[in-house]
């Protein structure tokens, strides 16, 4: 009996030892190691942006874009946040949405701006999308879902509206996996804190997106369906209290008014 127990324990040890050892290898990282080149990523980003411009009306009033750029500047200039130069696009839409595109671009809809009650809420959204870009979630996801070979064909000149539509739908209409959303969420709070922006409005926005939007795009479903949303909102608020973060105004009231009027501006362009 003793011999059997000893041998069984040794076998179990071998099994779990090998499993633990093999678990330390990042297999998925190796698979996603297939990357588009920097130029290809830029080119794909431009193709997607052009495609979006054909589908939706872009808002390009100087007062509006200047206010948005000021907001983004606060975030990108914050130290230790990747300091990635990001292009921000505002599109007229009746859907509350914001998403990142390859080529370091963020798209925000006018309805999202209308939904935000203060510049800090919008800054939270931008910081979240910026985090997806800095953490390379966007390109990783497109490569994983569409495939390197198809993307290479696309950026080599044979642009295909169907594939572009699929990619836009993927990025604008579906969520990242929860782990990536959590990472982006955490990084966004970190960015806001570093930039001297109060993260509480961001927490409020998450809460309101859960309760106030009648039809939340799937991209934001991680907020509305995630059972830990309340805990995470509480965590953000608790973090703010513990650090005693002092926020500073992001935009002048006039600049914020100009942004809030972007919806009407976009509509008048139609």
């Amino acid at each position, binding site marked *: *009996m003793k*011999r*059997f127990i000893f*041998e*069984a324990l*040794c*076998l179990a040890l071998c*099994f779990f030892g*090998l*499993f633990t050892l*093999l*678990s330390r*290898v*990042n*297999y*998925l990282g190796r698979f996603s190691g297939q990357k588009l080149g920097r130029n290809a990523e830029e080119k794909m980003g431009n193709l997607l942006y052009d495609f979006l411009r054909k589908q939706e009306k872009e808002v390009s009033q100087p007062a509006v874009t200047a206010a948005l750029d000021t907001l983004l500047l606060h975030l990108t200039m914050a130290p230790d946040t990747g300091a990635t130069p990001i292009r921000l696009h505002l599109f007229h839409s009746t859907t509350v949405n914001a998403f990142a595109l390859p080529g370091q671009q963020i798209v925000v809809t006018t309805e999202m701006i209308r939904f935000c009650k203060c510049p800090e809420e919008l800054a939270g959204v931008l910081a979240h999308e910026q985090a997806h870009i800095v953490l390379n979630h966007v390109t990783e996801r497109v490569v994983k879902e569409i495939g390197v070979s198809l993307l290479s064909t696309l950026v080599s000149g044979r642009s295909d509206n169907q594939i572009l539509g699929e990619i836009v739908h993927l990025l604008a209409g579906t969520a990242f*996996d929860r782990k990536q959303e959590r990472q982006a969420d955490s990084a966004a709070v970190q960015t806001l804190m570093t930039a001297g922006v109060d993260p509480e409005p961001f927490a409020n926005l998450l809460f309101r997106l859960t309760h106030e939007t009648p039809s939340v795009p799937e991209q934001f479903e991680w907020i509305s369906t995630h059972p830990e949303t309340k805990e995470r909102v509480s965590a953000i608020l608790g973090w703010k209290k513990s650090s005693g973060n002092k926020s500073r105004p992001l935009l002048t009231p006039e600049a914020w008014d100009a942004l809030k009027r972007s919806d009407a501006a976009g509509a008048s362009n139609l």
Partner: protein
Amino acid sequence: MTESTLPPVGLGENDWEKASNSYLMSLMFIMIGLPLPLINLIASFIYFLNNRRASHYARWHCLQAVLSQLAGVFMNSIGIYWTLSIVFGSKSLSNPYIAYLLTLLFFNAIEYIATIYAAIRTRKGFHVEWWVFGSLTNLLCRR
């Protein structure tokens, strides 16, 4: 795995064949049963029941074949459950999953090789005792 240096005395060709067939049975049904590793266990168990009145040598090897299948079924079932959860459920492909599949592959390969070896040696009348399963069979199989 341990092996007696000389074939057990007092046994005939028929006993050796029965013992060897118990391993061949599991091998054959692994091919049929994949990816669900249950059929080979059932086949080995039925073969063991059929030979429960055979000589101790034949019974002992039939039981060792069943017990080794049992452990394999348990480990492989977890792998299948995990795979189905990824394909149809909410789980996503992860590094631990790939690591588990590789571990399974390794242990299944060892078991496969050991089964072939045991089938060949028992056919020649040698007594092959596997690590863990041999000890357990000694505990369960009485003369």
